[in-house]
């Protein structure tokens, strides 16, 4: 049945007119976007919870206001193929749910955008994992984007790194990341979906390991002057440190909770024996 009828892109007429007006304005001046309740360098509220998928080795759920991402890690587990005595294989797969965006259309099969983003996330994380510690094994990371309201890459990298920590995989450090959208004269940290889809803007993504002060991934797409790029990267690096402190705090909290639960269980078992 799927695709047997013609589809129409629908939009409210008023909005269309407004957009046309905006476009006219944009041609004359720079893009004017108002942020509600936050400044250009301010992050939205972040909610993190690790260990929520019972069937996975490690998992993490992240909410950056409306952006919702779930990540689960399987492994390190034995590789199916008989291979040489080499370091672990590291796979990463990102998938958008079909209802994750009201504008973009996603199918059940992997499209180019998802493949591209999977690779960027893999590259950002692979430097932090001690793969040589797990020969002849596979580590699989699966990421599912439930709701896309911008900054999906940062949410995914953060969730994946937390999930790896939750799975107990040996790492040099957790990877924190930060992205921004640059217009002609403004740098907007933690962009929303609306800000990401503005025309004539540049996206910058930085991922780094703050404890070692090493950058693991740097992606910039769009034209921008050299000085602005440096400025934006500096801003993003500061943003990474902020995200890192949230991740660290969350990791400590979840470990404390696990220890408490373990204690409670032990106490209960002792009670049973008596």
């Amino acid at each position, binding site marked *: 049945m799927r695709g047997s009828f013609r589809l129409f892109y629908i939009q409210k*007429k008023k909005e269309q007119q407004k957009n046309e007006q905006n476009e006219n304005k944009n041609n004359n001046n720079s893009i004017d976007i108002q942020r509600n309740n936050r400044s250009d360098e301010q992050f939205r509220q972040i909610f993190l919870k690790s260990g929520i998928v019972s*069937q996975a080795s490690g998992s993490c759920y992240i909410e950056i206001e409306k952006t919702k991402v779930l990540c689960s890690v399987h492994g390190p587990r034995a590789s199916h193929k008989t291979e040489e005595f080499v370091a672990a294989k590291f796979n990463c797969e990102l998938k958008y749910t079909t*209802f994750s965006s009201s504008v973009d259309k996603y199918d059940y099969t992997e499209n180019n955008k998802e493949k591209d983003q999977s690779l960027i996330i893999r590259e950002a994380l692979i430097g932090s994992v001690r793969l040589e510690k797990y020969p002849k094994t596979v580590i699989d990371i699966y990421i599912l984007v439930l709701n896309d309201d911008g900054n999906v890459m940062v949410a995914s990298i953060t969730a994946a790194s937390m999930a790896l920590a939750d799975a107990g995989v040996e790492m040099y450090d957790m990877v924190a990341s930060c992205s921004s959208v640059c217009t002609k004269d403004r740098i907007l940290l933690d962009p929303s979906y609306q800000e990401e889809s503005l025309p004539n803007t540049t996206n910058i993504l930085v991922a780094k390991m703050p404890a070692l002060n090493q950058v693991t991934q740097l992606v910039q797409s769009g034209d921008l002057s050299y000085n602005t790029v440096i400025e934006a990267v500096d801003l993003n690096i500061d943003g990474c440190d902020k995200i890192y402190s949230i991740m660290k705090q969350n990791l400590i909290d979840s470990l404390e909770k696990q220890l408490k639960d373990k204690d409670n269980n032990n106490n209960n078992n002792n009670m049973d024996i008596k």
Partner: protein
Amino acid sequence: MEAFQKIHPLEFYRKFLQRSVRPDGRSLNDIRKTSISTGAITTACGSSFVKIGNTSVICGIRSEVGIPSFENTDQQTNIFVNLELGPICSNIYSSTKPSEQAMSLSSKLNSLVKRLDIPKEDFYFDQEGKVLWYLYVDIYCLDYDGNIMDASILALISSLKNVKLPRGIIENTNEYYKDTEQLRSLQINHYLFPLSFSIIEDFILSDPSNQEEQLSTSNLTITLNENFEICLLSYSGIKPISETILQESFEKLKNRIEYLKSLIDSAQEH
């Protein structure tokens, strides 16, 4: 004890079941804590999240507009349900090939949607019904710990109740606009109340967990509506099922209906 569970899982379970208790502390008839919430996905026109114990599913509905492909469309449905069991929920599923289990469950869910009796007029985009709304219901399993059937049926019914469709406007015969300030919901005349059982030897276990499903010889799923009419009854297994077992299972589900109804209704209020 953990080693014994891994090496002889069936023997391990038998020891518990003979004392009418399960390893997780439930009695044979106990159902895990069930919770339903709706409206978490802002990009979908209706959504729900259902959790039964560790098993959790998220369901989102995408709406599209189209012209019906042929006239006399009494048999045609406007709702398409799909269940995704991806590698995110459990390592037994792969991302490359769709699981057969998911496909068979999807077809069951598609047949259940027809039992809801949603009037045809509710899908009209305009006044006359020349253009219709088509709803794609996608259920993603986030954590697979058994009894995915119950979770997905509950997710399906509560997300459909959560659907908000905008008013459609057609101008110049082929310009389509939606007015997001005037939203309406679907008129759903029936409920669906599912309950699954696993049968391990002679013991009937309500709401089986993942391990219980794997050890079971047969599985039974019953779905009733609010008038105690059977919407779906599926039984699969190597042993024939007796009438008394069926009767007992019906009674168990009937006792649960009131609770499920209040869960579905209260999830809509937030």
